[in-house]
């Protein structure tokens, strides 16, 4: 089902938890609400669930405004971080609970429970209690319970955060597969950008109750609209440097205390023109830099520490007195602590942000 959120605002006393949020989610889309804790993502989810009432704005499912429709009549499924499986009910009773409340014939309930339990690989656990099964199994049961009534929308609140890291990676793929197989519109709340990038069709990044951007993982990763998104998305995170924008004789130079980089025309044309001497922030991802011995148009530094990550190495380079930049180098890179190096930037992949309003200077995004 299509979900539209229009000018949605929620306040708790004087605190604005969600501020004028607008989102449009297509039928069958898997959307992440991503942001640090306290950014309003869970509040938004609970408003979609009908647990919180919006102060302003509208929530529209299909073509129906659901603001005043109670949770129980919204036909949604929900799954929380702590799974909220009733400890006094068996797994079968837990899964059957939403159907039991609808007063469906017992035989039909039994069949449906068995069917969904086997598709979630929990059919051998039906007579156990929640505290007798593992975390991953509890997670599956909670999903089965959310989906057994065939809801139109599935809401997930940090469903993977209680699992150990290995299980989390396998559940990531599993949830994505289930979502695609069922084609169910899904809203997924998470603070983990890796989860959001790897699972979702689109990501809504939120900060302090305000939507920062809504786009595909590639868009957000490659063309972050502002400094917050650039800082939040990507692991290891993007590097940032304070630079001064200098224009002279048709050339554009980014100048820092210890280095200066000249931008060719095809690059600086991609960004807004700024006044000479304007303070900017240069952002560049660790994978878009190279360590070379060439001195021209590069940044000079000294290797601070090298972190081998298995597949590649993360090289920390100190520039100036205390600035550390992280660069991904190949596995066979042979640099040692204290070596003098030069960093070459892949200028196609640099990001420039206004230091005052923190917005990207990229044109047409």
């Amino acid at each position, binding site marked *: 089902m299509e979900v539209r959120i229009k000018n949605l605002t929620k306040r708790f006393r004087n605190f604005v938890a969600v501020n004028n949020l607008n989102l449009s989610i297509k039928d069958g889309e898997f959307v992440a609400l991503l942001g640090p804790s306290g950014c309003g993502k869970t509040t938004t989810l609970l408003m979609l669930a009908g*647990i919180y009432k919006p102060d302003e704005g509208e929530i529209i499912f299909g073509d129906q405004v659901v603001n005043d429709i109670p*949770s*129980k009549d919204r036909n949604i499924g929900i799954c929380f971080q*702590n*799974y*909220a499986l009733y400890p006094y009910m068996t797994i079968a009773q837990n899964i059957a609970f939403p159907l039991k*409340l609808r007063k469906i014939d017992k035989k039909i309930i039994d069949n449906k429970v068995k069917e969904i339990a086997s598709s979630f690989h929990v059919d051998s656990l039906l007579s156990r209690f929640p505290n007798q099964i593992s975390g991953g199994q509890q997670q599956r049961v909670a999903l089965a319970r959310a989906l057994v009534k065939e809801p139109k929308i599935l809401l997930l609140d940090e469903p993977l955060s209680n699992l150990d890291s290995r299980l989390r990676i396998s559940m990531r793929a599993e949830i994505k597969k289930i979502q695609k197989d069922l084609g169910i519109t899904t809203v997924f709340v998470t603070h983990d950008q890796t989860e959001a990038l790897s699972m979702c069709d689109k990501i809504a990044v939120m900060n302090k109750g305000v939507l920062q951007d809504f786009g595909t993982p590639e868009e957000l990763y490659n063309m972050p609209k502002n400094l917050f998104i650039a800082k939040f998305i990507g692991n290891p995170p993007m590097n940032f440097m304070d630079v001064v924008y200098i224009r002279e004789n048709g050339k554009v130079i980014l100048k820092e205390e210890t280095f200066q980089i000249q931008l060719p025309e095809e690059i600086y044309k991609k960004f807004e023109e700024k006044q000479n001497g304007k303070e900017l922030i240069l952002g560049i991802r660790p994978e878009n830099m190279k360590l070379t011995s060439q001195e021209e148009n590069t940044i000079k530094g000294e290797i601070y520490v090298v972190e081998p990550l298995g597949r590649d190495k993360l090289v920390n380079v100190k520039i100036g007195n205390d600035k550390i930049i992280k660069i991904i180098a190949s596995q066979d890179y042979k640099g040692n602590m204290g070596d003098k190096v030069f960093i070459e930037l892949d200028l196609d992949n640099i990001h420039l942000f206004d230091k005052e309003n923190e917005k990207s200077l990229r044109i047409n995004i």
Partner: protein
Amino acid sequence: MNNSKKSFFVALPFIAPFLLLILFFYFVPVVLTFIMSFTDMDFSLRWNFVGIDNYVKLFRDQNIGIVFMNTIKYVFFTLIINVGFGFLLAVITTYFIKNENKGLLFKTIWMFPRMTPAVIYALLWLWFLDPTESGMLNMLSNKLFNLPSQNWILNHPMTVIVIANGMIGASLGMVVFSSAIKSIPKTYFQVASVDGASDWGIIRYVIIPFLKWPLMFMTIWQTLSLITSYEYILLITDGGPLNRSEVWSLYSYHKAFKNYEFGYGAAISMVLVIIAVIIAIIMLKLFGYDAMMNKNKIKKE
């Protein structure tokens, strides 16, 4: 000296004062009562042993039937108010009233009778139920329903003592159940309402199952305290009129301190001692010592 013995002696100085209190004010009186129940001690306070005469007398006592039935009625109906109404208050003040301050205000109001000294509380009831036209309940029933004034205590003694005790007892249940409801993680309520549960569904499928232990505990605990308590009955009806609100513990009191039949009174109260011990054993068996000490029954994950 093994470890458990050692830790007992380390703990002794800390628990000794309470141990002594329990010994002198609970255990010694029980033993004295037990011995006394085999004497025909009267106001002369002589230990004159007569064997099981008092227990034989108990079986032949023509009042014992009505006292027994009164006790059952009193405990049963007061229990319904203490546990049932206490639960209702907890649900209203914790689940339905979402504003914590408002909930707290109502809880405080219900706690007032418990904070009031027993004599004053009983006195308030006596004023409230005054048989003359200036009694508060009479005034209300005159004005609202045009009913003639009546002597409420004379006409409905059991109802009066059940309600008076229930009003006090309910507040304890309310406090215990409220905090138990608060300790249920919010997500259970949220999942249940998304899954289609109405308020009634949430009470039935979430609150009551989560409160199974506190509900059971309160029921047994209150049973125990109700069969042995008589102070409000003594102050309001004094068991009257004509034994119509006389309960077991009050009967023992009356025999001992009104008729000065200390031996016989002791025998009557021995029955309560036996019942109390049985209930205490059931409680320990049912809940277990560890379970009673670890109050959180909710497995969050």
